């Protein structure tokens, strides 16, 4: 759904345009008109006036960022987040489109709930795309009505929060998804191996006396899913929040066999390891957990070499009382919308020298390809006027207390980051400016 279409025009002048689809990484002016990209041209070459001008000197102009994985907590858990507060945080983080997960109360497993999410009363300030449940109530037993959900506007299906564990149900989901060209998103975790576990299984979990989730619990499900996808015509498998080196191997094997396998990685998995948690701080507790150093190295390599399609935040807000407790009992998940770009530029670009153009791709064209976002992920003429403008050199300090999200559960409170969103434009209208 897109917020009200604007009838005005906006000229973004003097910026450095990075549009991986159009293969542009150069100074360009961009004219937005009637909610679309009207013209992209060399500096000062766009003739005629515009109702508004945006001075983008020294800034990067990019297609609007797309987050494939957020938990907006509606319906049912408004004490954690609402669509209004979650999308305000998204706008502040430069995201013009977010995909909201169905593990709400109740689970979004019907056409009615998918439509409810898209109603203007929800107060979304960026585009919200629904990912619907793959099985009824995400219980893993009976597939939902993929065709009806897709027609109602759902962009993919998942049982996120839980895996689709049963072999035959996963096979059926991939078969049906293949017929409809509908991605099946897997939360890859063999929950039979992770009961009562709350962090990565390794030296650190042993030392802390916490039961650990093995890397194999993720990798074995990804391997099975890739094997299935390789043998089902047109099946589309998307691996959510991939966190282990072994799972990447399976993804690569699937790609080589021409299977349609895509994957996303979160900022916290390319930034932190299991060694970083201190004093049982549950702001370091999420699922999948922070992994080992070698997993992090593998993820960094895969972000650079193209194996990873998208950076997705897995923004998972929780109220303070659901986090400030015994580590083993605290809720899984951290917020992430407002720190994603800063972490990407700080860790991936400045420290690991991944080109900015590749980072932009991971936020735009990459995710757009995963779920077929039409008219998004690029600023070629005629595209939807979703634009993210950021300052790649700006140093700033993230303060959780000032977050737009209703929840403050983040391990990045007080972190110094480089790279900050300056303006977020949705459908030609500025919805956030710093």
């Amino acid at each position, binding site marked *: 759904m897109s917020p009200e279409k604007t009838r005005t025009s906006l000229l973004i002048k003097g910026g450095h345009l990075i549009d991986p689809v159009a293969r542009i990484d150069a100074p360009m002016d961009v004219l937005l008109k009637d909610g679309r990209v009207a013209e992209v041209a060399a500096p000062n070459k766009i003739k005629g006036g515009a109702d508004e001008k945006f001075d983008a000197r020294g800034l990067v102009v990019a297609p609007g960022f797309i987050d494939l994985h957020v938990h907006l907590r509606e319906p049912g858990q408004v004490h954690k987040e609402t669509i209004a507060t979650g999308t305000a945080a998204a706008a502040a983080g430069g995201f013009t489109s977010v995909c909201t997960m169905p593990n709400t109360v109740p689970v979004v497993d019907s056409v009615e709930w998918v439509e409810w999410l898209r109603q203007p009363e929800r107060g979304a300030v960026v585009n919200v795309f629904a990912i619907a449940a793959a099985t009824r109530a995400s219980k893993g037993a009976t597939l939902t009505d993929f065709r009806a959900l897709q027609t109602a506007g759902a962009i993919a299906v998942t049982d996120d929060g839980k895996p689709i564990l049963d072999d035959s149900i996963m096979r059926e989901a991939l078969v049906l998804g293949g017929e409809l060209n509908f991605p099946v998103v897997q939360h890859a975790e063999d929950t039979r191996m992770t009961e*009562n576990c709350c962090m990565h299984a*390794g030296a650190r979990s*042993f*030392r802390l*006396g*916490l039961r650990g989730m093995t890397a194999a619990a993720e990798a074995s499900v990804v391997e099975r899913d890739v094997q299935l996808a390789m043998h089902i015509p047109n099946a589309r498998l998307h691996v959510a929040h991939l966190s282990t080196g072994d799972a990447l191997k399976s993804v690569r094997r699937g790609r080589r066999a021409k299977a349609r396998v895509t994957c996303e990685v979160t900022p916290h998995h390319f930034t932190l390891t299991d060694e970083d948690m201190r004093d049982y701080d549950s702001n370091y507790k999420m699922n999948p957990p922070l992994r080992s150093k070698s997993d992090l190295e593998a993820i960094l390599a895969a972000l650079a070499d193209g194996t990873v399609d998208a950076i997705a935040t897995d923004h998972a807000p929780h109220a303070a009382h659901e986090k400030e*407790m*015994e580590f*083993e*009992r605290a809720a899984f998940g951290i917020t992430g919308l407002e720190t994603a770009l800063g972490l990407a530029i700080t860790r991936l670009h400045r420290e690991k020298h991944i080109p900015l153009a590749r980072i932009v791709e991971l936020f735009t064209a990459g995710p757009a390809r995963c779920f077929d976002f039409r008219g998004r992920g690029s600023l070629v003429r005629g595209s939807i006027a979703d634009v993210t403008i950021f300052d790649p050199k700006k140093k700033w300090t993230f303060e959780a207390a000032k977050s737009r999200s209703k929840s403050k559960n983040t391990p990045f409170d007080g972190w110094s980051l480089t790279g900050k969103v300056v303006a977020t434009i949705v459908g030609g209208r500025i919805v956030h400016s710093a």
Partner: protein
Amino acid sequence: MNPARGSLLGIEHMEAAEILKLLKFARRMNPDHARPLLKGKRVMLLFYEASTRTRSSFEIAAKSLGAHTVLIQAMGSSIEKGESLLDTGYTVRAVGADIIVIRHPNAGAPYVMAQHIDVPVINAGDGLHEHPSQALLDAYTILRNKKTFKGLQVTIVGDIFHSRVARSACHLLSKFDVKIILCGPPELVPEIATTLAPGVRVTRHIEDALRGTDVIMLLRVQSERLAGMKIDLPEYIARYQMTPARLKMAKKDAIVMHPGPIIRGLELTSEIADGVQARILEEVHNGVPTRMAILARAMGKMR
């Protein structure tokens, strides 16, 4: 918030000198002739999990020093009604607690408490993580029997994975360069245990573990924590039970320790439990002066 001065959350981050100081101070503690170092103080014993030895010895230790004690158990308190850990902490603080002693089934619970409550928090055992007062009383017992840590070899046999006693013991002994050998089946003694502290070695063979050792610490197989793990008990007994024949492999003057509760016929035979080399009851006895020292330290009275 940083933990209040005097808190005892674990052995891992404690300095060797501080440990020695505490053990030395413990030798001066006598429950029958104690100075009232904690006169008028309130010690809250917050027990979320069953305990006999630890609870009673903390209680006796506190009372010997002149403190009042209040025991709060999960059963029969607001904890049962769903009160959160921190709310219970704030409540006992508001009542006037000067020290909180906490036993909890979740690793790290005392850390969470200590970060929010401004009185010393003493970890009386947290999940699989640490049991610092047990490690200190065991160190006290070892020193009483062996005089020094120098050149010692300590063998720990049994369920290391589920043992907070073993984790704390490894951290403590390692700080004094003691050779530590962990022995048991892979399910209970994973290879990763060697990363716990310098000087820790793992073996599957009891003969290898016992040869020339000075101290044998036995652990109970914690069936309540196994969480689906299948342990073949007859096999365990055949391979790892401490018997008089096996004890002969150790040094002649080796001592046998056990944090209790012991299960006769499982990890040890009655001949071992009641034998001359056993120090199991001495450990319990030493728990009182050690915990007196811990409580006095919490109130800044360790001088």
